[in-house]
């Protein structure tokens, strides 16, 4: 079978190539071969001219002769890479010499490949096709990625707001804000509340991952005491914990050193670890949140009574969608994103997050954050 049938066909017609060579005959030959394939060709007879033409035509690929009077191919390539950076088209060097040194120098200068003269048309076309395909796929990938970000941004508004209204209205109803409810009505309202709450959490977590992955995680750091954040989180987790008759206590023997963190983001980490502890511990447990401090760092650890982390699942723990075999003990939902987000947030603060099983039962999640200087 013809090998080309195995590669998915990508339409490369009309992709533009800048061919740079001081030898007119060569330009003519290679230009002819490439035009025949449907590529759009621009020519330059020197390095200097190539730089000018590049700026004007912005080709998808550059075929660059090494030996030219004036600035040579390597220098031309280096200038292109320096000027256009990440967005620079791939450069394939054309050289009459096939010395290994030349090839290495070409790659050093930023080239992606090389061709030796005299040309074998099939080789020329195959290599060009490969690099143009890669370049096109990269272009499509970054467009798709931008579309995904836009879509997620849309989710932020179009899903989050209505969901938080549904949740809020259900909460208000269960608080008898519109009059007292029958047992059955209360059950229904609580179901609406629970379902909208878990959807909201899922949407929020997906958005967090997307934001962090896109490199858009911005930290608004300020000096903070970790105990203040922990106290607040314990208060907020109290309702869920009380449902399972679980107690959360804070132990703090530190002098409350300041850490330099984004409060909202670290709050999210604390909330997440405490919620997990409640979620995976049996009813009636005691969860301890310990405030830690040493010379350079301050942080906290959350000690639960859950099943602990099996050794063979440890590697999945802080990864996206890394759900383990342990099941929530009160039918709670889990997206498998929480700990991945925690790790990303902590690492963005140049801190560390780790977990150890405690002797007997349960485990201890430890977060360390750099102290404020």
């Amino acid at each position, binding site marked *: 079978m013809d090998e080309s049938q195995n590669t998915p066909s990508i339409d490369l017609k009309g992709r533009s190539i800048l061919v740079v060579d001081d030898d007119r005959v060569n330009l003519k030959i290679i230009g002819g071969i490439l035009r025949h394939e449907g590529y759009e060709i621009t020519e330059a007879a020197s390095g200097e001219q190539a730089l000018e033409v590049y700026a004007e035509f912005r080709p998808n690929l550059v075929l660059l002769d090494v030996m030219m009077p004036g600035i040579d191919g390597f220098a031309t390539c280096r200038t292109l890479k320096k000027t256009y950076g990440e967005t620079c088209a791939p450069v394939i060097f054309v050289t009459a010499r096939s010395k290994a040194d030349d090839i290495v120098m070409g790659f050093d200068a930023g080239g992606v490949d090389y061709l030796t003269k005299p040309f074998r048309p099939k080789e020329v076309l195959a290599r060009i096709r490969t690099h143009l395909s890669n370049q096109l796929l990269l272009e499509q990938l970054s467009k798709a990625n931008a579309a995904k970000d836009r879509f997620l941004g849309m989710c*932020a*508004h179009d899903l*989050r*707001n*209505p969901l*938080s*209204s*549904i*949740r*809020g*209205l259900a*909460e*208000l109803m269960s*608080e008898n*804000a*519109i009059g007292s409810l029958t047992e059955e009505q209360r059950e229904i309202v609580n179901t609406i509340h629970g379902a909208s709450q878990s959807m*909201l959490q899922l949407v929020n977590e997906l958005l967090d991952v997307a934001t962090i992955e896109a490199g858009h995680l*911005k930290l*608004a750091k300020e000096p903070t005491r970790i105990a203040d954040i922990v106290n607040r989180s314990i208060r*907020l987790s109290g309702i869920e914990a009380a449902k399972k008759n679980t107690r959360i206590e804070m132990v703090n023997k530190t002098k409350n050193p300041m850490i330099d963190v984004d409060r*909202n983001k670290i709050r999210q980490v604390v909330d997440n670890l405490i919620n997990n502890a409640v979620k995976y511990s049996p009813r009636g447990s005691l969860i301890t949140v310990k405030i830690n401090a040493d010379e350079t760092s301050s942080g906290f650890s959350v000690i639960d009574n859950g099943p602990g982390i099996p050794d063979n699942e440890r590697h999945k723990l802080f990864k996206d969608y890394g759900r383990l075999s342990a099941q929530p003990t009160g039918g709670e939902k889990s997206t498998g994103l929480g700990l991945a987000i925690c790790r990303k947030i902590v690492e963005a603060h140049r801190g560390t997050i780790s977990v150890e099983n405690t002797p007997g039962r349960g485990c201890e999640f430890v977060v360390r954050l750099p102290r404020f200087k």
Partner: protein
Amino acid sequence: MNFGGSILLVDDEAHIRKFISLLLRHLGVKRIFEAKNGTEALEVYQREKADLILLDVNMPVMDGIDTLRGLKKINPDCVVVMLTSLANRQTIDDAVRNGASNYIRKDAPFEEIGRALAETIDTCFEPDAPDPGAAPPP
């Protein structure tokens, strides 16, 4: 929450207005005005002079920051609290620079929204000052 004043609630989304106004009533606020965009907000404010304005950031027609500027032009001392869905530092800074007193995440659990409102009312309406709209002391 002890607040006898009136509140103007501005948001383009009906469900948010429903939720926040129910929450306000639940917290004991008696007089609530609503507007669904910035232009309408300025009109209602001209007419009703609410004591506190809850103002959405993202709105069509006239966005929250422009509306905030308009409100401050009518009354430089008006108390405005921004309603946001994502805590965007830039937007919050913009709002504060233009005279907003505070911001509230409308996607927060309702106890938190209530607490943030109570805090704003405590700071912006000093206890010594006569409570706006409250009956004069006997």
